[in-house]
């Protein structure tokens, strides 16, 4: 499931962008240090294969619905983690640009959620140790399913964490996890099964294709530590950005405090809104109407401000309608003019 721009704050989106960029840089360095002529052309082809494979829907038994493969684990098995991560990153970029999947700010998040977990965690830490020599089909099936489910669940957790940190959605983290993780475990089950079937087919028909990545991925170093360091770095960066953001823009914080007190008063008094609004009115009335700067600071959270008195609320609606009309009008004017002078 793609993370969406609309649910992201700039701090979380930016932090994940930096982390994703660092990981891609690391992946390309790793690839360059293990030269193999056959891997480079396969990256682009298999990235495109993900698109092609997603055009083929299969029916999911017992649900009456149909789905398609995600392809993260499959690419990792075929290409090895680094090449697979780069291939997936490019797939996600094209999905963001052409198919409105996620968005540009969320691209970093999506590379982490859908790329890092299958390529750098599920594949090397779960699939590789469990897969054995690949001679037993049932073992392959079990391994693929476990790795795929784990990767999906981690991706789902990451979506929850990013959404929660951004604070645009109101969904409490606990409920969101309960919503996301079971769905993704089910998706992982199907994905793992299909991945195992594809790998099984290839190993019967053309086993030499599978040797590609096997030769290069002897267990080396401790991949887990580096990945953990990278993720920790992303978390710290996000935290740092978030806190600096919060101190630069006190209105967000102020607002949430206001909201809390507002809720308190609702519990207490009969006409809660009026009480809150009265408090606001007395606050805002200190600011003279013509003082642009202060006025603006107060109206940062326009809704609350406009709620402060019915007159302003009308002004807000009127102004919004006018702005929309003006924007549309300018667009229409430009279009008509361009038609006249092509």
């Amino acid at each position: 499931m793609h993370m969406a721009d609309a649910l992201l704050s700039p701090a979380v989106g930016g932090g994940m962008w930096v982390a994703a960029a660092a990981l891609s840089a690391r992946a390309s360095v790793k690839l360059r240090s293990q030269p193999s002529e056959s891997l480079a052309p396969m990256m682009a082809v298999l990235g495109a294969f993900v698109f092609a494979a997603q055009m083929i829907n299969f029916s999911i038994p017992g649900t009456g619905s149909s789905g398609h493969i995600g392809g993260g684990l499959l690419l990792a098995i075929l290409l090895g983690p680094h090449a697979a991560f780069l291939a997936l990153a490019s797939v996600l970029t094209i999905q963001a640009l052409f198919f409105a999947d996620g968005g540009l700010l969320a691209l970093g998040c999506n590379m982490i959620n859908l790329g890092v977990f299958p390529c750098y965690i599920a594949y090397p830490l779960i699939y590789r140790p469990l897969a054995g020599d690949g001679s037993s089909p049932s073992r392959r099936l079990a391994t693929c399913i476990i790795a795929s489910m784990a990767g999906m669940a981690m991706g789902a957790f990451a979506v929850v964490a990013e959404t929660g940190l951004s604070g645009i959605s109101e969904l409490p983290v606990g409920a969101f996890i309960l919503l996301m993780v079971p769905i993704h475990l089910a998706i992982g089950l199907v994905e793992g099964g299909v991945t195992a079937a594809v790998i099984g087919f290839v190993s019967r028909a053309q086993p030499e294709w599978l040797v590609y990545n096997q030769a290069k991925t002897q267990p080396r170093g401790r991949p887990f530590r580096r990945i953990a360091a990278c993720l920790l770095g992303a978390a710290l960066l996000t935290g740092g950005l978030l806190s600096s953001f919060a101190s630069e823009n006190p209105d967000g914080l102020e607002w949430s405090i206001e909201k809390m007190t507002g809720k308190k008063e609702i519990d207490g008094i009969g006409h809660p809104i009026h009480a809150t609004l009265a408090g606001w009115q007395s606050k805002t009335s200190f600011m003279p109407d013509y003082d642009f700067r202060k006025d603006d600071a107060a109206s940062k959270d326009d809704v609350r401000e406009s709620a402060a008195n019915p007159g302003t609320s009308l002004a807000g609606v009127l102004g919004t309608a006018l702005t929309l009309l003006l924007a549309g009008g300018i667009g229409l004017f430009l279009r008509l003019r361009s038609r006249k002078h092509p």
Partner: protein
Amino acid sequence: MRTVDEFDLLAAADSPLHAIDPRAKLLVVLLAAAVIASYPRHAVAAMVPLFLLPAAWLALGRVPLGFVLHRLLPALPFVLLMAIFNPLIDRVPLIEAGGLALSGGWISFASILLRFLLGMSIAILLVACTGFNTLCSALLRLHAPRVFVVQLLLLYRYIFLLADEARRVRLAYALRSGGDRAVALPVAGSMLGQLLLRVMSRGQRIHQAMLGRGFTGDLPVRHAFRWHGRDTLFLLGWAVWIILARAVNIPDQLGRFVMKVLA
């Protein structure tokens, strides 16, 4: 992959927006994405001035509105699903006008939809009025890693080839199964495996052919654009508008002004 074809057709057209340096367009879109995300979660009216961006680009780039809406539609369900929780959870009334109370949840719901519409339509217009290859060469000029850009360019070329391949497989299955659109799960593995084998051997052949023509792992990219004065103007103008819209609640100010005049 008809979507991608349509993008290419639009990108091949000529318009004032097509003529702008892709780097300027890309930077404006990135700035807009960051600024849209930075609005507080109950912002609705304050975001509306940013609609000037897609409205003007639609017109300047001569892109049909239906095209953009069509591209937005498939991604909408997920955003709706996420946004619908806000009104269910946050029921504290924020606005009251004429006996009608709107809860904070509905306002943040509207805010999420606005964010989606704004951000996505701008990104779609960027690709539709620039073209993927030009965008990639702009990325290179902005010092994006070369390996990644080459990967993007190759992937983009392969998508068209492989989509045809997948379409043939799908058609073959539909013909033999009495028109089923979805493949039975037990068949899916070998069908995708078959597709994968074809794709890989095809990739291998193409790569051999490319090597035969002197491919060294790097695609030469033509930079068919130069930075003009109008590009600076374009970038600065939009940047000022975007930042102004974020800093000042324009609809609110406009509404007050009109009310004052009317009163």
